[in-house]
């Protein structure tokens, strides 16, 4: 994987994904390894994303690398009208790898074609965010002991949720069964269902999950946002249906775990946090190890 970029989860074969997950486990055992000593990593955040940036910067710091970059494009030459082309060609002279987040879709693919150093896409608009998908896969594998034959519940905004689309595509390599739980307005788009049909995978659609929750191996929660609804009354009707509460978890499997890409607003009630099935904060910690693994793979260090 040396000198490759990571733009989309599809850029990695299943073997390569498994290699990253294996490396992630190594970093979890031994997070402080000075493998990036003498390396400079640029973190270019053309739009703010505190959580993702801190996770990457923590991963780089634990590996002993130095960070250059910005967390908000308004204080940079971009605000003077510099093109992405010029920014990337310039910054790739200053560093060994670029982590970038940009609001324009396809920007990371374009950057990877003009950059002399590898690019990690830390989110390009509504398109891809592959390090999130890899950390989700790691969290699933770690908590379930396997990736094969799991029943994955995807809950909330399945129409616009980039995270759930990428996770669903990735999990389709391991014979997953999917349960989609969403309001009518935010259903899984047709193109993804066609993809699953072609892959011969089972999926079920629901508007409420209380009756079927006992089947879940993983419940992946996302936020149902008010601004996604054309009719505010529809939002008022459904907003409480997609809130996970501790009382709903009684009949769930002992091994079941709840994931969430964070930030959470109210879709998981805080009374769930104390339940051992709540895994979202550990999931965020796994993100640091996963990013250590990605950085070292792309730089050819591991």
């Amino acid at each position, binding site marked *: 994987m040396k000198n490759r970029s990571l733009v989309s989860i599809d850029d990695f074969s299943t073997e390569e994904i498994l290699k990253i997950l294996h490396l992630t486990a190594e970093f979890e055992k031994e997070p402080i390894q000075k493998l990036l000593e003498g390396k400079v990593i640029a973190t270019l955040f053309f739009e703010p994303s505190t959580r993702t940036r801190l996770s990457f910067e923590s991963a780089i710091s634990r590996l002993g690398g130095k960070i250059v970059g910005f967390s908000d494009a308004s204080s940079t030459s971009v605000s003077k009208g510099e093109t*992405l082309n010029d920014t990337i060609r310039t910054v790739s002279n200053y560093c060994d790898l670029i982590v970038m987040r940009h609001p*324009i*879709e*396809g*920007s990371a693919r*374009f950057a990877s074609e003009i950059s002399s150093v590898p690019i990690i896409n830390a989110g390009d*608009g509504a398109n891809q965010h592959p390090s999130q998908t890899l950390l989700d896969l790691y969290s699933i594998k770690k908590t379930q002991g396997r990736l094969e034959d799991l029943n994955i519940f995807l809950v909330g905004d399945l129409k616009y949720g980039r995270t759930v689309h990428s996770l669903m595509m990735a999990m389709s390599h391991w014979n997953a069964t999917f349960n989609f739980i969403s309001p009518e307005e935010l259903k899984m788009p047709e193109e993804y269902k066609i993809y699953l049909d072609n892959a011969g995978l089972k999926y079920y659609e629901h508007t409420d999950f209380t009756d079927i929750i006992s089947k879940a191996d993983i419940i992946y929660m996302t936020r149902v946002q008010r601004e996604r609804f054309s009719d505010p009354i529809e939002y008022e009707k459904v907003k409480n249906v997609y809130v996970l509460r501790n009382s709903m978890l009684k009949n769930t499997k002992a091994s079941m775990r709840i994931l969430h890409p964070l930030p959470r607003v109210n879709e998981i009630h805080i009374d769930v946090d104390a339940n051992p099935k709540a895994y979202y904060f550990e999931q965020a910690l796994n993100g640091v190890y996963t990013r250590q693994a990605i950085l070292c793979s792309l730089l050819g260090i591991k």
Partner: protein
Amino acid sequence: MKEGIIMKEPKQLSVSAIQNGTVIDHVPANNLFKVIQILGLDRIDNQITFGTNLESKKLGRKAIIKISGIYFEDEDINRIALVAPAAKLNIIKDYEVVEKRVVEVPDHITGIAKCMNPKCITNFEAVTTKFKVVSKKNVALKCHYCEKITTQENLQII
């Protein structure tokens, strides 16, 4: 000058035959200039004649292009498939049609089409568009950059 003398013999649109070259027939009339642009016919010195708004049972109004001294590779001619899917090519040698060909939508398209996603990088910076053709019948193009699908109805030629 007396009127009528000029019109004595009814005039007909005639596009002269070519000795060697290619005739592209069944081009939708409204896409004639797009075909010319895609094939770069506006930038070559060969003799070219074209007729447009000709009657056609199939297309309503069609256009025809005759290019002297040029034979196209499949790869090049297939680039017009997005705007002239029913185009037929007659390969002319010594005034005779020696071969007839149809165009086929290629697997990949570079340039030519615009990505319909207003948030795609190709609509912000000087990036040549690139698509994978995911459906040929009802043309659907998947953008190499933003990964969104542009369908036939939304297809715009650059």
